[in-house]
């Protein structure tokens, strides 16, 4: 007898209201919800040959596979999020059977309900700030008296002395650049945080990932009340124009599923 291909259960998100799947069904081969004690898991069947532990590790090295699957993950959750509050799960959360998923909902159900209650009428927004370092530098060079002073000294210095003065100038410049970046990042974050109910700072990502010319100087996420979203976006817009000439640019995106704000009170692994 031929064995059917083994299937796994892929979990996208958890909701408290019954999720409306119709609009996102077209994104994947299989999509359904699993109900357990007042919570719904939005799930779909996937092939073990693609998502089984070993096969998954092989596929994760394939960037195009990751990009396509992660995009689907995101789109499914965004679709569900239009109608109801969601707890987004990390890409690639898999169960062997629906019973496994129900057992997880049994264990964490109350915590999920608490989190969903806290997320009600709130949206996650992301703000990333980038800096054109060269542009920032040229702005600083004209204005910093210490740097101008060293520049003048260099003009009349001997070759040997000029070497050290140039080194000193580079150091002063780096300090000034770091100071400006810190100051601007800090100020912007503080202002945006004031309009949010929660805020996170995430690790900076390199240019290869951001696909931008400028360096990322702030990677942050905010949980914003629906009523405050206009103000929040307005503030991001004003930050964007305020320091544009100095070389800073602000990317504000949203609303996102609350990836950054659905942590369980106590981090508990499946072995914990």
């Amino acid at each position, binding site marked *: 007898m031929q064995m059917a291909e083994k299937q*796994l259960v892929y979990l996208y998100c958890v909701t408290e209201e019954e999720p409306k799947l119709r609009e996102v069904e077209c994104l994947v081969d299989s999509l359904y919800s699993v109900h357990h004690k007042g919570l719904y898991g939005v799930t779909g069947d996937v092939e073990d040959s693609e998502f089984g532990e070993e096969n998954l590790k092989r596929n*994760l090295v394939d960037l195009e596979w990751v990009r396509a699957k992660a995009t689907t993950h995101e789109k499914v959750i965004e679709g569900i999020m239009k109608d109801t509050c969601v707890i987004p799960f*990390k890409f690639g*959360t898999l169960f*062997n059977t629906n019973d496994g998923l129900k057992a997880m909902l049994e264990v964490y159900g109350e915590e999920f309900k608490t989190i969903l209650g806290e997320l009600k009428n709130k949206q996650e927004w992301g703000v990333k700030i980038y800096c054109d370092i060269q542009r920032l530098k040229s702005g600083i060079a004209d204005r910093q008296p210490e740097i101008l002073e060293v520049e003048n000294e260099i003009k009349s210095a001997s070759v040997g002395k000029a070497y050290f003065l140039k080194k000193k100038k580079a150091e002063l410049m780096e300090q000034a650049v770091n100071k400006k970046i810190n100051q601007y990042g800090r100020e912007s974050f503080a202002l945006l945080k004031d309009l949010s109910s929660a805020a*996170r*700072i995430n690790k900076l990502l390199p240019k290869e990932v951001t696909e931008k010319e400028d360096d990322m100087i702030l990677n942050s996420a905010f949980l914003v009340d629906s009523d405050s979203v206009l103000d929040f976006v307005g503030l991001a817009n004003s930050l964007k124009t305020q320091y544009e000439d100095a070389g800073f640019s602000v990317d504000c995106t949203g609303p996102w599923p609350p990836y950054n704000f659905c942590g369980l009170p106590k981090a508990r692994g499946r072995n914990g």
Partner: protein
Amino acid sequence: MDNIGVKSGDVTLLEVLDRVLDKGVIIAGDIVISVADVDLIYLGLKVLLSSVETMERLRGAPFPSPMQEAT
């Protein structure tokens, strides 16, 4: 008016790595992509990259400690 806040149709590689693969509830599946597994993605990415120090930079803290938020 700036189109700030508007997301384009496709999810960028940046958002894939920053949100979908890095955040979200990460518990209790029978299989879940772990932090070590996410490094595999960067390994895949590194094929496309020339930068050797990427992994190191990715692990680096964005700001000196006063900037870090505990909340």
